[in-house]
């Protein structure tokens, strides 16, 4: 369980995350949606201890993230943000192998190599594993970073807009991968996502944020609702049930 209590963050006096309290259950895919500037990424980054809170407390399986040893947390929670820029020339395999660092401390054993190979295969990168990152397309690079995060093999995985740069085929397979990881291995995946229909079709739980607060949360059936979404995005929404999937359209008439 991840518990967030009264988390607050402001930049230059602007409250970005305003006294947020929420709990994330073990296992399942949770999507965080909301308009630009709603505080989604900031909240995610605070939970993943990339940004310090101005106030509040966050615990992961009862461990306070502010006081727990970094390596210990790294075995429980992995995070991937957007815009990962690396100046060093690394091969895909080297990058993915870094995911094992919390376990191997830089001395990978057989077991670690197996994890690396599995993560490469999961994301269809086996053939590209010898390539340097700067020889890849944006989508391939994005998958390489996701593979590194998977390779860390943590109970909690957080992704900030993981579908960026991905074409439809790879976006769908990545969301399926997250769902599979959650169902088969009991992982907890938290994604910040802009495409509402991806959130609708692949999550178990949706958190909708607006103005630094959690506006609504619940199952996709509850959140993907014309009036709730219209409220959150200040845009008229229509929601259709297509073959059991709740699909939102917002291309105003």
């Amino acid at each position, binding site marked *: 369980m991840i518990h967030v209590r009264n988390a607050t963050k402001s930049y230059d006096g602007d409250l970005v995350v305003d006294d947020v309290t929420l709990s994330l259950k073990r296992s399942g895919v949770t999507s965080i949606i909301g308009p630009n500037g709603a505080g989604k990424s900031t909240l995610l980054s605070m939970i993943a201890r990339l940004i310090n809170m101005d106030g509040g407390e966050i615990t992961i399986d009862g461990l306070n993230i502010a006081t727990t040893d970094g390596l210990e947390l790294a075995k429980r929670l992995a*995070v991937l*943000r957007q815009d990962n820029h690396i100046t060093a020339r690394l091969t895909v395999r080297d990058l993915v192998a870094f995911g094992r660092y919390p376990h191997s401390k830089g001395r990978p054993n057989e077991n670690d190599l197996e994890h690396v190979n599995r993560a490469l295969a999961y994301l269809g990168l086996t053939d590209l594993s010898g390539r340097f990152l700067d020889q890849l397309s944006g989508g391939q690079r994005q998958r390489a970073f996701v593979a590194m995060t998977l390779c860390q093999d943590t109970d909690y995985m957080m992704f900030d807009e993981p579908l960026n740069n991905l074409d439809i085929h790879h976006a769908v397979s990545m969301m399926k991968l997250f769902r599979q990881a959650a169902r088969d291995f009991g992982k907890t995946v938290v994604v910040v996502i802009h495409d509402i229909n991806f959130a609708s079709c692949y999550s178990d739980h949706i958190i909708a944020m607006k103005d630094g607060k959690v506006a609504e949360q619940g199952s996709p059936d509850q959140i993907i609702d014309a009036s709730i979404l219209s409220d959150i995005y200040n845009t008229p929404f229509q929601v259709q049930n297509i073959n059991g999937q709740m699909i939102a359209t917002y291309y105003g008439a």
Partner: protein
Amino acid sequence: MILLCLALLSAIGFMTIGARGNWGFILEFRGTKLLALLLVAYAVSVSTVLFQTVTNNRILTPSIMGIDALYVLLQTVLIFAFGAQAISALDPQIKFLIEAGCLTVFALILYRFLFFGVFRDVHLLLLSGLFFGLLFRSVSGLLQRIIDPNDFVILQDSLFASFNSVDKSLLGVSVAVIVLVSVIGVKIFSRFDVMLLGRDSAISLGVNHTRNAVFILALASVLVAVSTALVGPVTFFGLLVANLAYIVLPGAKHKHVLPAAILIAFICLSSGQLVLERLFDFNTALAILIEFAGGLFFIGLILRRGVR
């Protein structure tokens, strides 16, 4: 491996070519110089590579943090305050320790202040480094203008990097410092690699980025202090060897890149000094050759980046 052979070859060349007379004297005389070259090669290359790892930028060198500018200021202030004669009379070992200490303390204050203060931004750190560098240079410039002309000549002499005038008495201290730094550094090689991924990924992988950044920058500034105090500012050289090492070993980890950079630095220095002594008859300073090559390389790097 090839680098190691080349390094040995250039070392032997440096020791033997053009040698006439008493071998005992030659070996001792040139051996001292060779040791100094090795120390400087080590200090410059390691400090630059580490610095670039932390800042995630391959065009920056510790000189941008104003460390060598501080060295110049330190020399100027010493001579300005006490006069050239008093400084010459000072025990060089004590002077060296004071200088190295000052540089390190300054660097640490700068880093600590910035990292544990309100700002945690590498760019801000670099900007303030740039600012301090400019400040130090301006103050030294001012002092040099109002200094006694005789003192100024002596000062200028000590500011140009020279591998001919290495002080023997400093070598022992430098070796000790470098060995100490290396013993600490080797233990956390793999952490250096993780730092390469940038702050977010490093934290996600459980490496305390801030603490390690400060620690690595501290190691780097100790090394800069060593090399600067030994032969003066040659920080451009670091850029050259660090980038050559990245080119020779693309995608390599620190445990390979660091030795490669050291060997390349050593090859450059020893063969450069050899050429200088035998070909140019000591008519020019090695620093000038290095700055020339380094400058060209720097322009090349920037141009290549622009194309991408």
